[in-house]
């Protein structure tokens, strides 16, 4: 690891100041990607601004029908939260299936969403559920938030303080884990929302998380396992790597969608 300066931010203002002052300062959420990348000398932030101790950044609450999860809430906290389990059980199960126990007790929702790893689980949930990302500057709808591989709508100095989830009629997530990393080789989130059926796919897209039009059409017409399996999911635009060629991923998208529908 290259030398770096660690700041434990006490408030949002404090964090913003530290981010502005550092030459190449970065926000430390859970560090589950960043720290590993730094160890490999692939990232070299001058400053690390730890936002986990900022008041109000951790925890789950309800705002009317809206589930509000603090930006620095760990996956384990989301998975075990009674509120989450009651409001959107699929989200609790998704969080409980991220990585392994060590990852789940350190990684945070804000960190995961801001990193927008193309194989991360949370982006699929946010996009399918029509969630809203709350930052220290504004609110961004999930549709406008994810912007390709490791890219989001976040500006410099912008900190995710919470993620808000509306209540939906039905939702489920099914993941096929990449055997080595346990990231999603293909993860499919299905939801019946106020805006209709939304089906999102993570782990498979060349440009990160995406909505599958084919599956949304099929499941809007018929919310069933058979309908998902029969959907015309194309391999175009899907990733190919040692763990899965595009054709295999296209198959998994249908299978995982079907399993998600079954679980919904």
């Amino acid at each position: 690891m290259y030398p770096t300066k660690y700041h434990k931010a006490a408030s949002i203002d404090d964090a913003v100041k530290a981010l502005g002052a550092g030459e190449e300062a970065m926000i430390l959420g859970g560090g589950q990607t960043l720290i590993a990348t730094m160890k490999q000398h692939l990232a070299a932030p001058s400053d690390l601004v730890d936002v986990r101790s900022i008041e109000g950044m951790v925890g789950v609450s309800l705002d009317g029908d809206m589930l509000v999860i603090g930006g620095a809430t760990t996956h384990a906290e989301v998975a075990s939260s009674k509120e989450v389990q009651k409001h959107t059980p699929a989200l609790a199960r998704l969080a409980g299936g991220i990585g392994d126990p060590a990852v789940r007790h350190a990684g945070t929702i804000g960190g995961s969403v801001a990193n927008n790893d193309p194989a991360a689980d949370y982006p699929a949930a946010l996009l399918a559920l029509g969630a809203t990302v709350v930052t220290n500057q504004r609110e961004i709808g999930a549709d406008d938030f994810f912007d390709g591989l490791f890219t989001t709508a976040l500006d410099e100095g912008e900190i995710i303080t919470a993620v808000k989830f509306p209540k939906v009629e039905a939702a489920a997530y099914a993941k096929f884990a990449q055997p080595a990393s346990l990231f999603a080789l293909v993860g499919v989130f299905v939801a019946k929302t106020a805006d209709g059926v939304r089906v999102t796919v993570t782990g498979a897209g060349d440009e990160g998380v995406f909505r599958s039009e084919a599956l949304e059409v099929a499941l809007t017409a018929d919310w069933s396992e058979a309908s998902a399996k029969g959907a015309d999911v194309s391999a175009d635009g899907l990733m190919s790597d040692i763990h899965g060629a595009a054709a295999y991923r296209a198959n998994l998208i249908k299978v995982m969608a079907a399993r998600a529908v079954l679980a919904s």
Partner: protein
Amino acid sequence: MANGATGIGARVKRKEDKRFITGKGKYTDDVRMENQAYAAFVRSPHAHANIKSIDKSAALAMEGVVDVLDGHQLTGDGIGNIICGWAVTSKDGSPMNMGAWSALATQKVRYVGDAVAVVIADTQQLARLAAEAVEVEYEELPAVVKADKSLAKGAPEIHENAPGNLIYDWEIGDEAKADAGLAAAKHITEMEITNNRLSPNPMEPRSAVATYDEAEEHYTLYTTSQNPHVARLVLSAFYNVAPEHKLRVIAPDVGGGFGAKIYIYPEEITCLWASMKTNRSVKWTADRSEAFITDAHGRDHISTAKMGFDENGKITGFKVDTIANLGAYMSLFSSSVPTYLYATLLSGQYDIQNLHANVRAVYTNTVPVDAYRGAGRPEACYLIERMMETAARELGMKPAELRAKNFIREFPHETPVIMTYDSGDFDANLAQAEEAADVAGFPARKAEAAKRGKLRGLGYSCYIEACGIAPSAAVGGLGAGVGLWESAEVRVNPVGTIEILTGSHSHGQGHETTFAQIVAERFDLPIDNVSIVHGDTDKVQFGMGTYGSRSGAVGMSAIVKAMDKVEAKVRKIAAHQLEASEDDIVIEGGEVKVAGTDKALGWHEIGLAAYTAHNLPPEMEPGLKESAFYDPSNFTFPAGTYICEVEVDPETGRTEVVQFTASDDFGTIINPMIVEGQVHGGLAQGIGQAMMEQVIYDDDGQLITGSYMDYTMPRAADLPFYSVHHASTTCPGNPLGMKGCGEAGAIGSPPAVINAITDAIGNNNLSMPATPQNVWNALQAVTASQAAE
């Protein structure tokens, strides 16, 4: 002399585990020397390139950097090239083509990770930063990574003295007879079989701490070695680092080896030399990324095989052609792995009269390949056992029936590939495994799984392997550069406690427990009165180390020989002091007694008598300490049957091992719990190879699977609860009747797993690792061929 609680056959809890599980183990990286500096290596980012220049100035200018050393300085100081210690001769009589390997490359780099220079600095972090500041200018050359492509015309040539990248073209057996046997066959099974390349991944990465004492002109090396004496010998005799009597090598607690810690690598050589150059203690510890690109890999064979059968299913002939990838340089025992440790086992458990194997070993621009748990024997077992299962399916016979038809049943049995099997009862292992696995109930389980949408399959593997790796004269005749005996010293202290000094080395095997058990058994003493000393060339006179499942059959046999001498002297002392005949002396319950009388001496009194020497028989030397060297008369031959049962999810290709049954013949078992643990670990590695693990390079020689994000290691949740059984025959070749158990699990299991999966999916064309994607692809091929029909 029975010692039920702690003697032979007792499930004694491991004595060493207290320090291991409480974090009190002392590993090489725990060693802290005064005036210690750290080494970081400048490594090639290219798979194949000429070194144009090395600019050290920026690194040298950094505060805290002690020195930056390169290969020209190293060779200039007379440090010798790294050698392969086993000379394999091509079938045309020519010697193998061994390319030069300098610990720090001077002209050319040949794989990603090849060391070019080393930075010595005050801290590890600084050393690594400075290593990045060393500017090396390369002229890139085309690279080749696959064994078959390396032999192709026009492939880039990796070593000047290895035309066409061929190291040797070797054969064993009688080709004319094998051809005739195949010509006479009623049915021929033909397969192309690859054995996937693996990374060894011991939990503890390699490490070295080297210290030069200027006043004494003496070197001390702490290192992660499975064989510290061999390391000292090679470092001294071949690499000219220091004369043997001026070099102490200590391998303290070592966290797993699996073969990767047998060899003497560039890093240990460089640390020793650098400690002299800088007059500092020099420490280096690999991180996991460095382990992936420097620890010797394993396996990596491409073979074609033909096996002929007569109308009764008897094997008429067997012919194998193998290309073995040895990587960029020949590691210490690399040449022997695809030859004498592989092709000599191609007869399996079967009476095959007509057998021929041809092996070509080649260079590629990849990490050197050498022995990895099983070393050659897994490759042989996988090939034969996939052939047998596939042949049974083609012949419409039960896999067990075809095997049993061809079993060897008389011992000793001489195979056409120079092995003489000394013992075994293959029917017994097969029967025990079939019963434990409830093979009879399989059709019902398959039908039940089908209702859940799962494809259930059953696969066999009847393995045999060769352990101990000896006798010395025989392996010498086959080209080995060392003897493969073992030594031991039994030291009875004046108070009667016992220290066993052994040349075997424990890096997880539990020697401190099992070795103590045979002493406790022999002298009927509490096991806590016995301690085991190993891993230090200043303490133990000599030893060949631990690999090839040899510590029991060879290492313990040396202890038995030394105990024989101790017992003889004890009897003499007791007979003298108790005024009895030596023949009437019995050793029992912590005492040395005259049988049928109440005359006895406490074991501690014997010790004291030996060292006070006040009343010893005339002419007897004082003291009670004996040493012995044991050279086995033959390899040992562990064997057994493994049966694997899997369920495949046809929608995703994901496979679950739902049941794994092992019946092993390990000969005498000292500690069943430790033996079961060895089998469990071996099965985990074998299932890992069969379903998950694979080293992948891209065509430019960049390692794709360079971390656990892409290299899949088996996790506990991936593995079933094993059903482990023993049906043993005694090994006639050593005093305890032991065969060895360390590698069997890794050797026998991969074909059982693949045979089970191919049974489930109805397609024999499946290569390891059977990842979900590979299994799904094989299933698509079945669907496509059914659609075409």
